[in-house]
């Protein structure tokens, strides 16, 4: 079947087997190997990408289901050569060890922070319960997301009241 997708801003047209999984399409056809496979059963979260801006587990989507969709993978998260605040925060807070779960965790968190820019520790933990990490014990992952949330709210245009506060 023909699919037409936009991945990390680039448009592709490919003829794919109907049973080809989206994750295999990304990894084997487009050679975007930053998206990993840890369980192929929608549980570990290693394969998380954004489909039309929402986090989705690409191991349980067929490539054909992504027809006419916009997909972002870890390789496309940086904008204009600038790393996403989550990427820099994971490095600063040692939120990764082997790095295998990391792309999926970051993609999940990136979507979550759009919905909830000021999460509590507990909210972050709940948001990440669909991403397994065997290395970090999650502690520094949580701290990385907290730091990214801080950075992202700082970089938002300052609100009017805030501005006045700053002036005062």
């Amino acid at each position, binding site marked *: 079947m023909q699919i037409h997708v936009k991945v990390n801003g680039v448009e592709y047209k490919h003829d794919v087997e109907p049973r080809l999984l989206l994750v295999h399409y990304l990894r084997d056809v487009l050679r975007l190997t930053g998206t990993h496979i840890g369980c192929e059963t929608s549980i570990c979260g290693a394969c998380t990408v954004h489909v039309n801006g929402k986090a989705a587990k690409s191991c349980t989507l067929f490539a054909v289901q992504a027809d006419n969709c916009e997909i972002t993978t870890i390789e496309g998260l940086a904008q204009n050569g600038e790393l996403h605040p989550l990427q820099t925060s994971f490095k600063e807070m040692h939120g990764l060890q*082997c790095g295998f779960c990391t792309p999926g965790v970051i993609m999940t968190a990136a979507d979550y922070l759009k919905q909830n820019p000021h999460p509590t520790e507990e909210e972050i933990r709940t948001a990440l319960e669909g991403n397994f990490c065997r290395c970090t014990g999650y502690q520094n992952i949580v701290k990385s997301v907290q730091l990214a949330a801080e950075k992202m709210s700082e970089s938002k245009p300052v609100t009017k009241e805030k501005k006045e506060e700053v002036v005062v």
Partner: protein
Amino acid sequence: MSTTNGLIGKSVKRVEDNRFITGKGNYTDDIILPGQTYAAFVRTPYAHAKIGSIDTAAALAMPGVVAIYTGADVAAINGVPCGWQVNFKNGDTMKEPKHPLLAVGKVRYTGEAVAIVIAGTREQACDAAEAVQVEYEELPVVVNAAEAVKPGAPQVHDEAPNNMCYDWELGNPKAEVDQAMATAAHVTMLEFVNQRMIPNAIEPRSYNASYDAANGRYTLYTSTQNPHLIRLLMSAFVLGIPEHKVRVVGPDVGGGFGSKIFHYTEEALLTWASHKINRPVKWTADRRESFLTDAHGRDHITKAEMGFDKEGKAVALRVKTFANLGAYLSTFSTCVPTYLHGTLLQGLYTTPKINVDVTAVFTNTTPVDAYRGAGRPEATYLLERLMDLAAHEMGIDPAALRFKNFIPPFDGVNQPGYQTQVALQYDSGNYEGVLKKGLEMLGYEDFRKRQKEAAQNGKLLGVGFSTYIEACGIAPSAVVGALGARAGLYEVGQVRVQPTGKVSVFTGTHSHGQGHETTFAQVVADKLGIAFEDVEVIHGDSDSVAFGMGTCGSRSIAVGGSAIMKSVEKIIEKGKKIAAHKLEANAEDLEFAGGRFTVKGTNKSVSFADVALTAYVPHVYPKDLEPGLDFSSFYDPANFTYPFGCHIAVVEVDKETGTLALRRFIAVDDVGNVINPMIVEGQIHGGVVQGVGQALFEGAEYDENGQLTNGTYMDYCMPRADNLPMIETAGQVTPCPHNPLGVKGAGEAGTIGSTPAVVNAVIDALWSGGHIVKDLRMPITSEKVWRAMQTA
């Protein structure tokens, strides 16, 4: 530990992160080679069966299929070897049945491979594997180690009567221990199961093998913790192919936790097949295969007794363990319940008489081998459960009982190491120190008050202690050789100074999350007084690194780091000679500090980079010196290293529902000197959560037919972000006296210490509510707690 530019001891951010956070890591499954084929396995659904006919005709005719091989095709090839020989008590050699690349005649555990199917795509290989018809005749099954040795139990291997691989004992003679036990005023006895764990690295095992006919060379990309070991075992012991014509690469590896140490049958089989079909063959386990075929961990059934005098001083420890090795011997399986378990049963205590007796057993289950901690968590669990339980039974505070029994502090320099009753000599320790610190962090006195108050509010609070020791820095070759290891466990470290003064470091250890590219670069940059960015660490490729034993047993910094240090010292020594020539001075009058060679007492000096350039452009050069600045060293440690610490868990139990929650976890770890505190703390976090996982969430379940009933992520409960508290960590530093960096290793500490602390806390909570429970089977769920409250 002197530092020349402050890099040692600093939480330098990891260089490897740059590729991982951008999706540019390079894991084995990311690699596609020209002409790539894909393998799928036909695996037995039965745990024990005779194999009848295997019909591959239909499968071979399917689209894309390149080849199918069965046990008959590889029957003449050796099996994968076991790396550690343990003898029976009577001196006989352990039973070592062949561990074949594909099952021949019989299958012995669910998931064992019967045939390999190779095709042009992954999907074609999987389709064809399903079309292979195998006839099985089911045989009776045994899964439990204590049952397997009973008369009449199903036999896993004909050559291992009663399913025994070996029996083994260590420590004081049994009669002496019995006698000491008889004098005890109190004996605490615990029968427990240290359940089987499934390692679950998030990257599944993956291999990609190829053969280059033009040069007669094999290349194997493998998700391994020790590429050189795989190369040695596979070429010399399994396939009989020339080692110098084999390249083994462990690229980025997504976690190991022990499970990627071992030489797996699939590695050898793919390598063999790639030559047969003259095309690269790749296989990556799916998660179900990982559950069934990654070597599992733990699985001990133990009875342990500890006797105490009236004052609460331990007088004797007696241990009987049945260790389940699964259906075949995995690479290091045999040393785990013996030399990594029995030898740790002194713990931190002065117990004068100890006897440990281990029977290692074959069953119709997945092979069992080292899993993070390997034997040491089992030993710690045994001792620390006994200590807390004894305290409860004797009405002594569990912290006080430990203070009474601790080995007094010794630094291994001014005071000698501590000789245990179980063959080891501890290097240095201050055991009281870590418990004191832990108690302070907990606010212990206050805690007991809160515990009483909680009981009035419908909650039971419990605190559990674990003061652990481990033997790391594996291993002094002569010692382990005498104990049956079939390999030396030294390490190789090469430091190559480039003409511009930039430095490449080659290590035989392998990083799969530990951050060696950062830690080792810190050490070298610090010692050479150069910028961190000017050092690159290379590991994992047998073509670039001379040799190595890889990463296991928290050995990388203690053994690998020491090998690198030896080479750094050689660089500095040669550098002094070159500098002396340049400065027209005597080499003995030179000192090296802050990246400069200086004539003592003068301001005549030359930079490290200058010396490096001179070494490679030797126009003005000492006559008796070779050009170049590149040294390789082998380091064989003098002893193990012995990190230790104190872990404290606080749990809360709802009196009505039994709902169990881990509220606090305190980890005070003494891992000797620390190179990068951020990385060490990260190792502790991850280790603790794996240990908590064993206590509360995880455990393989086999039914009586040998089916792994929870072999999926729907059924096997992995620790998740939302069921853990923030871990409170602290350190203490007692340097290792026998290696140049004074380091002990931190990879396994968290896992070793944490499990008993959590279980002890649950037991303490139950006792505080008047429920006198000695043991709950791990993983301890809320349901188990609730049931215990109904009956006790």
